[in-house]
């Protein structure tokens, strides 16, 4: 498990044109660094981050084997 699974949902998934990908974990230590690898643009304002399905922040630590998700504000109910 030397990779990180990255997932996208809703408008962010459409914007990136993919719902999931694997990233080599080497050199990545935070959620913000994951974003830096997957997209050249800055993270959209209001983007929510989850690490292993728990809410997290851009500075939250990320390690090999983790699942990191980026998505817009939620609109259920």
């Amino acid at each position, binding site marked *: 498990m030397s990779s990180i699974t990255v*997932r996208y*949902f*809703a*408008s962010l998934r459409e914007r990136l044109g993919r719902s999931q990908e694997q990233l080599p974990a080497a050199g990545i230590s935070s959620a913000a660094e994951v974003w830096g690898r997957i997209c050249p643009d800055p993270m959209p304002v209001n983007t929510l981050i*989850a690490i292993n*399905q*728990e*809410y997290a922040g851009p500075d939250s630590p990320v390690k090999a084997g983790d699942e990191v*998700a980026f*998505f*817009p*504000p*939620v*609109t*259920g*109910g």
Partner: protein
Amino acid sequence: MIRVQKEVFDPWRELDAFQARQGPEWAGRFGATAVFVGSLRDFNQGHAVAGMTLEHYPGMTEGHLKKICAEAHARWELLDTLIIHRYGALLPGDPIVLVATWAAGRDTAFAACRYLIDKLKTRAPFWKQEATPDGACWVKPE
């Protein structure tokens, strides 16, 4: 109990079935049941809505609904809680969500029910996309 499902559901039948499953030991143990049902309108922010697709994050959704219920149980004296939420394709009139709480009195039942639907709306990873006359449109948060 929490359930996230693609299929249409009838909230009133679900409540009936849920209570029936509890058996006779439930009888007399609660004085109040508070119920919230959210349904799909055929209008939103001034435009017509022909249908909706609800996307979710499988696993995280269930995990957070359970967490929200556990928070309500820690905060109030509740006999039980029930949340059912749809995903996938919905039509106007379809129930989207059912939230129910059972408690000794109405203050507790109402407060816990309100807490559950409010937390669900801000934390459960669901995203609504409406079918409008101008095409598919992601709903903005309230």
